[in-house]
């Protein structure tokens, strides 16, 4: 079976996709150059895929977008965020990873993206660079760098996060204090952003940021599946919650039971004591 794989330069997720693609057959890896122009790039990919039995990319923003365009052009089904392939049956991610679906992919070529962090990365292979003809479709006109004050949520080693239990925007002062001591990013749950207590950029979750911290401290967060979808990339989770039955405990490695308004300042004080400051 011949497989066309779209890769992005220096991209871990593309190398993970390569692992799954190799399991399907002989891989021809292609990249595209120039300003990102999804519909035009997809046209170039569809051209390059003539005769291929499968078209694969990472389940990244661009990977999913490009394959959706390719599938629309070819009028074929597209399975996004696949974890395994067995003949024409794929297992794919739903609910940001809280649920899996087995589905039959009736198309030819088979078009699928590979769910991030479900495969080991392969060694890089030779990549052919294609050029897409400008078809006048929307493309990136400019890239505006954002000056982010503080630690980025996505890359932070530690994230201290607050939920409904924090009670108010002002209540986040103790969360910020602890985060400051740990050099951590401040996060929050969807309830908090919906209430306007914190900006959406602080939200950890399926529709917010997916973190990859060494430690995630979840304060007053019940642990809805959509929140866990963003938090489960953390190596360790510490839940601080007054409800020992809260769902977050089923995803946590450590827990402290009680009122976060007492516990969080006590941890900050203990950290200061340990450092002699």
């Amino acid at each position: 079976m011949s497989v066309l794989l779209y890769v992005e330069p220096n991209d871990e997720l593309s190398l993970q996709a390569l692992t799954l693609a190799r399991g399907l057959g002989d891989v021809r890896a292609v990249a595209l150059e120039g300003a990102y122009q999804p519909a035009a790039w997809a046209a170039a990919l569809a051209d390059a895929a003539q005769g291929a039995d499968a078209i694969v990319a990472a389940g990244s923003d661009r990977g999913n977008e490009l394959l959706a365009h390719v599938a629309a052009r070819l009028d074929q089904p597209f399975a996004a965020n696949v974890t395994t392939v067995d003949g024409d049956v794929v297992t794919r991610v739903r609910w940001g990873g809280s649920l899996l679906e087995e589905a039959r992919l009736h198309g030819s070529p088979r078009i699928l993206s590979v769910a991030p962090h479900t495969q080991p990365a392969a060694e890089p292979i030779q990549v052919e660079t294609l050029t897409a003809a400008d078809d006048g479709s929307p493309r990136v006109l400019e890239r505006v760098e954002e000056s982010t004050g503080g630690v980025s949520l996505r890359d932070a080693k530690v994230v201290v996060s607050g939920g409904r239990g924090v009670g108010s925007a002002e209540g986040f002062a103790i969360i910020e204090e602890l985060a400051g001591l740990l050099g951590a990013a401040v996060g929050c749950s969807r309830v908090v952003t919906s209430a306007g207590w914190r900006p959406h950029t602080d939200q950890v979750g399926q529709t917010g940021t997916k973190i990859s911290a060494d430690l995630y401290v979840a304060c007053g967060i019940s642990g809805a599946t959509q929140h866990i979808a963003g938090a489960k990339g953390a190596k360790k989770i510490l839940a601080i919650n007054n409800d020992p039955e809260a769902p977050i405990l089923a995803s946590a490695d450590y827990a402290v039971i009680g009122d976060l308004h007492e516990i969080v300042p006590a941890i900050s004080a203990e950290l200061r004591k340990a450092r002699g400051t």
Partner: protein
Amino acid sequence: MKILVCVKRVPITGGKIVLTDDEQEIRTLHLGFAISPHEECAVEEAVRIVEAGGGEVVVLTVGPAEAEEQLRDSMAIGADRGILIRTDGTEWDPQATAAAIVDAVRAEGGFDLILFGNESADAGNYQVGIRVAAALGLPVVTGLKKIEAGEGRVRCERDAGGARDVYEAPLPAVLTVLEGLNLPRYPSVPGRLRAKSKPLAVLEPARPASKLEKLRLVLPAGQGKQAEILGEGAAAAPRVVEVMQQLGVA
């Protein structure tokens, strides 16, 4: 501006997903339903654009009869009318969903702007908006956190890891958005009352065969950890700091 917003009814899953015995659906007997989060922002954005510059907001869903609830919720915050593409309650695959929306758009004589969520909360297929745009021959920009609708054009921005990519598209266009685009308002009581009498059209196209055919749902392994309880209340602080030191983060 005439704007269409496509929304999806999804269950509010809470802390734990439980499947039906036939493994085809999530058990929803005790669950509420909502509009998929990205699409809530799409409805809010459409209402703001029309509040500022005039026009009409039409909200559409492909779903069971009960999905009227999500259309009325959208009307309660300002959408003018609804289109319910009624299914028998089984899930339509992305191609079937897109085809039904395309037919409805053509029957309406088109829109200046068609908004989608970037992906639904439940199925997460990442493609319906792009398929609709392709079928209608319209430009599409996805994953947006900012939209500025101007005269005959729309300027939009998408997150690109510490930066923002800027796109422009001529109208009519299809845009897919992400939560964080705006902060959706809560419906007012008068808004809810007005929503009850706003027009709702119901279409019932035949369901095409699934090409991405759901066979069964599976709960991922490894759920249900046993958290180590470090203590209760403020007295647990020394133990917490000890753990943080062991993890090398304190």
